[in-house]
């Protein structure tokens, strides 16, 4: 989750003053690197190197295990190589002994994992669901705008109303998932949704148990906090809308939707931009909700997305296909890179301005 500033960079009006002396100059040269070093070491160890490693692992078949390493006992007539080739029989071979070390239990398969992805129906189901998530998640933006417009009044208790509308965003996705899965419990008198539908003579429905509706049920749960987030962005943005422009437009006879579209929205662009950024990120990090609400089911990964499928392949009870999982992660990463590159490009342009 990220909020992003689009502040124009504060470029010093005065260029850096000439260095007062050689000592000062070198301190100014070295200082930034010293300040960066600890964070960079952390970041490299936990983010940069693992990205490269994932690419590498995706070329292997690996079940996540390391095997004990064996070597030949001197004078047994065996070689270390022969002991290694014995695999799980080495323990039975008197001529081989444990070294106390382990070996990476992986096999190089080249691009095979990627070729398998291409013919894997669940990969495509997951990708399709990713697209559905992304498209529907954008509803959070107009939804948030609508609520923000509704709440942008100065009446008694409005601050509390705004807080209460917003606070679903601070709930963890796990809690949101549980709350909504209980809300949608299947029986006619179990989930509140079905109770309410019953008042209107409809239902009961089992949204999360149905192949065609389950994904939408989870997205609805995800939209709840996401809409709250967009709402708060717009409320802040509306505070800063120039009142004079509004009055001027009013005098010109603009009102309602016209005013919104031609006068207010353009001024809200910074808020909209951030809303788009965080909504895309939110849509791609749908793992928590899916795990809690359906665990990918019903049936064959019907509510899975790439993030979920990757985890399921690599770390679930029946998973531990690390190479295949890494291949999925690489694809997901490459898709995200398009978006990240676009974002960085915009930042770069702003920096230059």
């Amino acid at each position, binding site marked *: 989750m990220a909020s992003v500033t689009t502040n124009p960079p504060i470029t010093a009006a005065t260029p850096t003053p000439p260095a007062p002396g050689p000592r000062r100059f070198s301190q100014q040269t070295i200082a930034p690197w010293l300040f960066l070093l600890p964070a960079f070491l952390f970041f490299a160890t936990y983010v940069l190197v693992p990205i490269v490693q994932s690419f590498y692992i995706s070329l292997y078949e690996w079940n996540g295990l390391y095997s004990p390493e064996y070597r030949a006992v001197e004078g047994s007539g065996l070689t270390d190589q022969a002991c290694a080739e014995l695999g799980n029989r080495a323990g039975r071979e*008197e001529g081989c002994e444990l070294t*106390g070390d382990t070996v990476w239990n992986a096999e190089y398969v080249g691009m095979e994992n990627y070729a398998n992805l291409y013919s894997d129906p669940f990969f495509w189901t997951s990708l399709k669901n990713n697209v559905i998530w992304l498209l529907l998640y954008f509803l959070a933006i107009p939804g948030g705008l609508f609520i923000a417009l509704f709440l942008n009044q100065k009446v008694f208790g409005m601050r509390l109303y705004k807080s209460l509308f917003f606070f679903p965003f601070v709930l963890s996705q796990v809690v949101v998932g549980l709350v909504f899965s209980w809300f949608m419990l299947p029986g006619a008198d179990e989930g509140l949704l079905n109770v309410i539908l019953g008042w209107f003579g409809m239902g009961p429905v089992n949204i999360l148990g149905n192949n065609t509706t389950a994904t939408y049920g989870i997205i609805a749960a995800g939209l709840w906090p996401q809409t709250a987030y967009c709402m708060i962005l717009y409320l802040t943005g509306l505070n800063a809308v120039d009142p004079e422009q509004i009055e001027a437009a009013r005098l010109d006879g603009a009102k309602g939707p016209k005013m919104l579209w031609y006068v207010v929205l353009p001024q809200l662009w910074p808020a909209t931009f951030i809303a788009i950024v965080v909504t895309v990120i939110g849509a791609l990090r749908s793992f928590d909700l899916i795990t809690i609400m359906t665990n990918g*089911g019903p049936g064959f990964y019907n509510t899975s997305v790439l993030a979920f499928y990757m985890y399921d392949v690599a770390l679930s009870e029946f998973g531990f296909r690390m190479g295949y999982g890494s291949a999925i992660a690489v694809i997901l990463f490459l898709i995200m890179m398009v978006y990240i590159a676009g974002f960085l490009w915009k930042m770069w342009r702003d920096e230059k301005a």
Partner: protein
Amino acid sequence: MRSIFKTSAAALAAATMLSGAAYADGHGVSGPLRIFSDMSNPAPRAVMEGMVERFTEANPGVEVELVITDREAWKTQIRNVLQSGTADIVNWYAGNRMAPYVEAGLFMDISDLWEEGGLTETLASTQGSMTMDDGIWGVPYTYYQWGVYYREDIFAELGLEAPTTWEEELSNCQAIVDSGRSCYTIGTQFLWTAGGWFDYLNMRTNGYDFHMELTAGEVPWTDDRVRATFENWQTLIDMGAFIDDHQSYSWQEALPFMVNGEATAYLMGNFAVAPLREAGLSDDQLGFYQFPQIDASIEPGEDAPTDTFHIAANAENVEAAEAFLLFVASAENQTLINNGDNLGQLPVNSEAGVDDDEFLNAGFDMLSNNAGGGIAQFFDRDAPAEMAQVAMQGFQQFMVDPSTLDQVLQILEGARQRIY
């Protein structure tokens, strides 16, 4: 006679010669023995601690260090424990669930121990499910039967008898459905319960051997015999035998349907008896029958998942570990730990006795006398992990919407060709 080489952290290698005499009784073994167990629920935990106590009484020289991990967490933690060499003995399951550790050489091959300790006789029934790659990789300590637990009182009210044939099964079920109930409760949210249904339907329709071939990947899922299994399943689904919305329930959440009488039976493992009794069903209301025959010419196969102990390949105290395994496998120990006050399950050792419990006796009798086809572990222990995952998803999808059968079988067949 064989020698086992081991290394300590200081890379000190010492060869230990094991004589046949050491197998016969555990005396003489000593040193620290590190056991990692997944027997974390209250009753199993007491059993595990009791075993350690009795073992150290008989072998005062051994200092056991026991670590008990949550049973679910253990399914991933075993990997770390085996690789880091922190354990001599670990708990696990029989069948294909051993495969990753056997293939990676993390379990120790104890074929010799089986031979010389006489286990090939006493534990013969499970030797097959402990064997892989020409080796035997552990010893079983308990198993439990699967079968149909049903509401005897409701059957009596409707004038029904426990079915033994498919025809009786179907006519019973029709009567139950006509009375406004479902024949079976089931919660397939976590998939494996549907695996139990497939196991039984397939073993009854095509036999144990075919089932084993299928889980071993030797038969295509699009085979007509597999289709026949699904057709029998569909007969039940179409007549409304199963409760609605089962895909949204766990097996525990499906229990109230049986307790409240909305459903009359449950195909489950024997562990379902305890919560059913706790929920208020008396032994007069609760009965058990073996899954009915479908094809009279087929010997019944049964699911009886087996829990096991293994020695880590990099164990440091192999002698004591082997002594402990022999102790676990003994008839005396298995009689004790499986009785109703302890695990409440069935001993594997053929010389052990079974506690006097209605359901344990029924299960023991069924597995000893009426499982001529063979004893399977369970779908997710017989099939490789990846196949089990996909197939059980397929079973759930089929149960929710039987019209997708062709698609389900296509996907399973695609998976089979990739996995095996």
